[in-house]
């Protein structure tokens, strides 16, 4: 008998363990089967057709050939990965700094922890409306204050130019994602045994040394899994870009998910849109696989299980 299974006596009664387990899981599997797996298969099928609102016929690989032959598509892929890497790195760095600050033993800490919650718990669309106003050139606080202090000579529309729109979206995305990352890191930091810190402190280790050699390695598992989850969510982040810029100006913020939405829902080209959706799934799958493989290597190298 393995250590994890229940006593033999219990196992004999009623359903076998395996059947019982599958009975418990089945509802969730069936639900996801209908709402996620079936549409996924349907997406793959549609990607080989030229489906639109009324008709569809089989066109083989032509949607994919079109994609691979367009330089614009590769620009979009590049932009999407740049978007993901930059935004996730910022979320992790700002989140780590935030969690460290919020775990510092200073009066008012409980209040500060509450105050970082709002961007996470409100609808993303509503936070974006706030940012829409912040970025407004005529009436927004950033442009307005910059003019007051003489940093800008006139109104500056942050969302009207390719580069500034892209980085504005990044900032908003980091704003939406940071509270959750901070809270997960904070929770992980609180799980680290105080004995470790005390032992290090007695040995004369400074604060920075303790952070680097105890905190970071101890919460590494959370950092690693948060990074992957955050990367996937950021890659597919839709609401933020759609509300702030709708992918513009001139494609400056068109990531793969925005491109897919525009093609499929905006222009009713279901077939071509599906091919783009499949491309997202393939790229994300490859990315996750690569990430997990590298992680495994690193873990083995350091002898961590």
């Amino acid at each position, binding site marked *: 008998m393995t250590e*994890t299974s*229940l006593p033999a*006596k219990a196992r004999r009664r009623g359903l076998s*363990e*395996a059947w*019982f*387990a*599958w009975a*418990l*899981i089945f509802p*969730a599997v069936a*639900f*996801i089967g209908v*709402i*996620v797996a079936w*549409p*996924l298969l*349907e*997406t793959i099928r549609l990607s080989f057709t030229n489906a639109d609102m009324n008709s569809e016929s089989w066109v083989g690989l032509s949607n994919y050939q079109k994609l691979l032959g367009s330089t614009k598509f590769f620009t979009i892929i590049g932009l999407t990965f740049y978007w993901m890497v930059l935004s996730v790195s910022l979320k992790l760095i700002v989140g780590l*700094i935030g969690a460290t*600050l*919020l775990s510092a*033993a*200073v009066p008012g800490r409980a209040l*500060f922890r*509450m*105050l970082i*919650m*709002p*961007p*996470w*718990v*409100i*609808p*993303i669309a*509503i936070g974006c*409306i706030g940012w829409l*106003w912040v970025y407004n050139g*005529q*009436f*927004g*606080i950033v442009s*307005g204050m910059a003019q*007051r202090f003489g940093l800008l000579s006139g109104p500056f529309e942050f969302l009207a130019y390719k580069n500034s729109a892209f980085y504005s979206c990044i900032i908003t995305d980091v*704003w939406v994602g*940071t509270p959750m990352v901070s809270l997960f890191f904070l*929770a*992980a930091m*609180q799980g680290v045994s105080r004995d470790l810190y*005390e032992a290090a402190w007695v040995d004369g280790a400074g604060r920075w040394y303790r952070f680097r050699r105890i905190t970071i390695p101890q919460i590494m598992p959370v950092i690693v*899994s948060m990074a992957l*989850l955050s990367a*996937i*969510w950021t890659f*597919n982040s*839709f*609401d933020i870009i759609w509300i702030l810029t709708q992918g513009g100006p001139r494609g400056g913020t068109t990531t793969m*998910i925005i491109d*897919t939405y525009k093609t*499929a829902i905006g222009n009713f080209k279901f077939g071509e849109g599906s091919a783009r959706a499949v491309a997202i799934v393939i790229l994300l799958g490859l990315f996750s696989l690569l990430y997990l493989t590298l992680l495994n290597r690193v873990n083995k190298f350091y002898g961590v299980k």
Partner: protein
Amino acid sequence: MLMDRYNIWQKIGIYAAILVFLTFILLPFVEMFRTSLSPMSHLFHSPYEFWTTEFSFQAYHDMWIKVPLLGRYILNSIYVATMVTVLTMIFVIPAAYAYARLEFPFKSISLGAFLAVNMFTGAVLLIPLYRVMQTLSLLNTYWSMIIPGVAFLIPTGIWLLRGYLEKIPRELEEAAFVDGASRIYTLRRVVLPLAVPGLIVVGVSVFIGAYAQQYLFAITFNQVREYQPLAAGLFEFIGYQSVEWNQMMAAALTGILPVIIVFLFLQKYLVAGLTAGAVKE
């Protein structure tokens, strides 16, 4: 404790850094609040002025007239998120228990498949999902927003709750078995009561997910104004001849206030609770 003592400069540094961090986090809310208090004439004043003596709560009154369904939108948001949370938990609890406690074939593969669902957010599968909703004749109903929400939250829910259930001592269940309790009875009467703190944390996380991400499904699957959640309904302030920005901000802040207050109270449990799910040994 001596180890945690800071000298005065370190304290100043920490507070300054927290101030910068919180400014970034709260800036849009401050700006929304300021906008909601300003009369339109001040908002469009040029050159830019941060402060005015004309601040008033007029917009909080006018918004109900400008968008009569506003109250409905706020309730819709909460209703949809609550339904999503309840349904998700019904699917998540048994599955998470199976993954935490039982041994069965395809265990790790099926768990991996669940987690892979995270890769297909609603936006990727929108086209066929639209057709599924059409086939089930759920378009333009509350269900068209609830059902996809549930599907995409189940995997994270299972993952979080599993971490919790693994922490519950196994001996208690074994004692119940020895006393002749059935599996279902043990799950209901022994495991679930012990897992209440975990259930709260997972439930709250699911609610946050459901509440925060209603926009896409709402604008795609639902055209009925009466069913729109706040995130989509707010855009009614745009699209008339002029945009009443102050009323829009007032409506946004009023709409999120009840939920924010609830979360401020739950925050303590959340931070403590996430530890159990997120960190394993």
